[in-house]
């Protein structure tokens, strides 16, 4: 089959179809296919990215028009401000917790649904279902679940915690909701990875008397580490961009304890009308995510092979 294809390509009967003899239309044709996507990328990714960099070096009028060039002073004033450093710290704390618990939850559900037991189809649907739940819907459901006096969570746990109104618990509560929403995607990828682990490995481990936990620790984890790294990157990127949960559940409070960076960008731009400053924050967000992604790629190469 392969040979005949090669033969057809070079066969003298079809000279006009050869790469060498392209009509002018055939030469430009490929570019026509990529034009729509390319124009859209230019307008809504590359241009705004350049504009963000540009605006971050300027101060703006409340309408977002440039008033004057200020150099890096937006950045220096951010990096020296207590509030912004707090917001960076909160974001990192939030992200670490979200990433750790999301992958752990994905791993646990993945291992559970990979066992040969009745009803796996139903379990798999349920474990991936949170993927379909929007952050707005999840937030509103949990505002009620977390309600200090009539909420079901305090009743079930027998506690009396103001989940969203205490600065000790608010960030953790938002993390729990985000983790719940993230289970679906993490589960889907981890299950797919688990299914590609060769079953012989487990069988020989059983013969040597390894137990349930031992098997997963020394066989499963190394085997699925490429997927875990992929999920690490995805979860970090997503968690640094969380917004809806914060805006609906805590509005950054109480006492700035959930004031994550994207919420801070939103506040600076649309409530304080300081678009230049907000763009500087966006640039910092971009570089943090870029750095984390690069570090993880490095790590992946070192650890998995």
């Amino acid at each position, binding site marked *: *089959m*392969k040979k005949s*294809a090669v033969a*057809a*390509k070079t066969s003298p009967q079809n000279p006009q*179809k050869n790469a060498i003899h392209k009509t002018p239309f*055939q*030469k430009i*044709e*490929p*570019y026509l*296919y*990529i034009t*729509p*996507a*390319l124009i*859209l*990328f230019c*307008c809504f*990714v590359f*241009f*705004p*990215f350049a504009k*963000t960099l540009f*605006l971050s070096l300027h101060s703006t009028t409340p309408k977002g028009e440039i008033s004057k060039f200020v150099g890096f002073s937006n950045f220096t004033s951010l990096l020296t401000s207590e509030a912004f450093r707090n917001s960076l710290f909160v974001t990192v704390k939030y992200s670490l917790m979200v990433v750790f618990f999301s992958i752990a939850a994905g791993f646990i*559900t993945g291992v*559970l*649904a990979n066992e040969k*037991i009745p*009803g796996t189809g*139903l379990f798999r649907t*349920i474990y991936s*279902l949170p993927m*379909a*739940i*929007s*952050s*707005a*819907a999840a937030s*509103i*459901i949990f505002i009620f679940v977390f309600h200090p006096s009539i*909420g*079901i969570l305090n009743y079930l746990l027998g506690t009396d915690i103001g989940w969203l109104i205490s600065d000790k618990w608010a960030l953790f509560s938002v993390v729990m909701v985000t983790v*719940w929403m993230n289970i679906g995607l993490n589960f889907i*990828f981890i299950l*797919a*990875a688990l299914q590609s682990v060769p*079953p012989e490995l*487990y069988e020989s481990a059983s013969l040597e008397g390894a137990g349930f936990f031992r098997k997963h620790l020394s066989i499963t984890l190394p*085997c699925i580490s*490429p*997927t875990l790294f992929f999920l690490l990157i995805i979860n970090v990127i997503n968690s640094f*961009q969380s*917004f809806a949960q914060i*805006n609906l559940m805590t509005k950054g409070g109480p006492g700035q304890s959930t004031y994550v960076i994207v919420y801070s960008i939103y506040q600076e731009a649309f409530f304080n009308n300081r678009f230049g400053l907000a*763009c500087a924050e*966006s640039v910092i*967000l*971009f570089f943090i*995510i870029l750095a984390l992604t690069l570090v993880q790629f490095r790590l992946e190469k070192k650890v998995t092979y």
Partner: protein
Amino acid sequence: MVQNKSTKWILLAVNCVVALCIVLPILYAFSVSLMTPSEIFQYPPRLLPSGLYTQNYTDALRMAPIFRFILNSLFVATVVTIGQLFTGALAAYAFSILEFKGKKAIFMLMLCTMMIPSQAIIIANYLTISGLGMTDSYQALILPYLTSAFCVFNMRQAFLQLPTELNEAAKIDGCSTFRFFISIALPLTKPSLGALGVYTFLQSWNQYLWPLLVTDSKEYRTVQIGMGMLQNAEGNAFGPIMAGVIMVLAPSILAFILGQKQLVAGLTAGAVKG
């Protein structure tokens, strides 16, 4: 894995408990949406309503034009999905099957857009859209999301898996490049199109920050913003709020369950290699 009977039962029980925990918030929201106000504020809290109190649903519809929000979101998500599949498949087709100068460089450039977090450019996009006077319109909601690198990348993977003989045979039969794309390549990559379609639809339906920025009037608000409005305006009317949440969740859960098989297969095909 080989297991004996008792581990099987233990695993089944653990699965049931975990599954229940995950699905419980949704079931609970549904249950609350059918409770009377006095049942909702009862202490200790009830898990199940005593009857089917559908008043919450009519109240929710009276408090906010939820059907309008649903129609808006359906329209926006559908156009965005079709747009992304269309622009993505077209570009992916050129990147996988056709040969041209600068192919690699342009492809890398498109992949680079995946490195730019959408929240980091959202302010610049907002300033552009508002500068053009387009806020509060369907264009504002749709235009920036008509293409995605994720879609281009995945469709390219799908086209690369088509046997090369197919293209050669079609060429010999005098099939034009575009006809091959429309009547052979696209139908053969239906599973990928389906998976990406479900994924894009859900993403678009669930969008929050962008519609929050560019819409002001009820006419163009999408479901996610509408739900937030209901929550802000009627803080303690939990029955109608939960009824609103359920009405908004229903279409996305339905889309997910219908497209689940394709979605899972398509999402994991490219990313996982043992």
